[in-house]
């Protein structure tokens, strides 16, 4: 369970998160939507401790992320995250990309790590790309590789930050299909996305962020069907 309690965060004088409260239960799929600069990415990077927070608390399975005593490298093994772009390590093959963390972080022997990697790459449909360097692949394939790479650490949670927004339209589908598959397998997920159709289909709940505030959160039918927040109404009008 991920518990976010009254989290505030500023960059210099700019307050990016203005007291966020949010709980994501095991097995839940939460989607976050919202305008550019509303703090969505920042929240995700706070959850796995890549960014410090100013006040409030984030608990992952009861462990406080920003407590001094927390071993962040250990915690991060539980939380997979995939970013918008520049995810693939260009100097490693696809297989090596996926094997790296299991070997270096978990200390798994090479043969076993390779087994895991092949399994996850097969899972996302890249079984035939093992020896290829990422630069030779399409953006969609690179994103799926990044997903496999995160999955290879057997995380309990997966965070996705607009994983399709840097892709050509024809490549978006394949990545969203991979996300759908994960959701159907019961993975706990937080997805930041601009794909409303996807959000509507897959999510248990959808959260709308606006200027650092979570303005509305509800199941998709309700949020898209009867938006209450006036900013959300504007936002939906613009995107439809």
């Amino acid at each position: 369970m991920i518990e976010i309690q009254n989290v505030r965060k500023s960059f210099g004088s700019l307050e990016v998160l203005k007291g966020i409260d949010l709980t994501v239960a095991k097995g839940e799929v939460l989607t976050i939507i919202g305008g550019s600069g509303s703090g969505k990415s920042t929240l995700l990077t706070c959850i796995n401790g890549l960014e410090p927070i100013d006040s409030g608390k984030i608990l992952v399975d009861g462990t406080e992320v920003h407590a001094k005593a927390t071993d962040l490298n250990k915690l991060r093994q539980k939380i997979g995250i995939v970013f918008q772009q520049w995810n693939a390590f260009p100097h490693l093959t696809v297989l090596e990309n996926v094997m790296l963390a299991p070997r270096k972080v978990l200390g798994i022997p090479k043969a076993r790590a390779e087994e895991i990697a092949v399994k996850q790459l097969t899972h996302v449909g890249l079984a035939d790309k093992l020896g290829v360097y990422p630069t030779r692949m399409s953006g969609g394939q690179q994103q799926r590789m990044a997903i496999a790479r995160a999955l290879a650490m057997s995380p309990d949670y997966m965070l996705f930050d607009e994983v399709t927004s840097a892709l050509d339209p024809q490549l978006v589908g394949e990545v969203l299909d991979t996300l759908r598959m994960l959701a159907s397998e019961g993975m706990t997920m937080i997805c930041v996305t601009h794909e409303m159709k996807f959000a509507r289909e897959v999510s248990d709940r959808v959260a709308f962020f606006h200027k650092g505030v979570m303005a509305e959160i509800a199941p998709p039918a309700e949020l898209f069907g009867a938006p209450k927040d006036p900013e959300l109404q504007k936002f939906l009008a613009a995107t439809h």
Partner: protein
Amino acid sequence: MFDTALNANDLIFLAKGAGMTLVVTAISVFFGTVLGIVFGVFRYQVGPWWAAPLTFVLDVFRSIPLLIQLVLANAFVTTVLGIRISGFTVACGVLSLYTAAYCAEIVRGGIESVPLTLRRAARSLGLSWRQDMTNIVMPLATRVALPSWIGLALGVMKDSALVYIVQVVELLKSTQILITRLQEPLFLLMVCGAFYFLISFPIARFGGYLEKRWSHD
């Protein structure tokens, strides 16, 4: 022009000088690179404000003629501090710091060329700072930095011609010694120049090739 009094002994003497050039270069480039990496990483890690004193010192090494650095360091260590060390040690010490000053810039540039998102991706997989540095940053930064680093190493080799000032007999100095005895300045200088050229030129070309190849990926 090529009928010369140069004998086998002289060639060995020249070869010893060339060996000294290479030894001084190798030692300085090695320690300079190690220090340069430490300084470069430090500068990147602590930010411009905290690194200011280091930046200043490194800048000094790039703003004063090497000849003066050598004379000053030699005078300071031996005359002022009264420590007895060889000219060879002084030469290697100064050249190492000189190399480090340039290398730190190259290293910093290399690190900065690694996209931040890539490093975040590595950290969020649970890799520690050190693992991120060795597995992600170093391989990628090396591609950017290597061509300039090769240029630097060759520059140090050429600049090592100045260590004669602290009584180290390297290639150019051995050439001058032979000129004194044999009085064939043009021929001997050609030999000396050719030596530098034959080492430097292919390596420089190789650096250019690497740069071209890696900038394509």
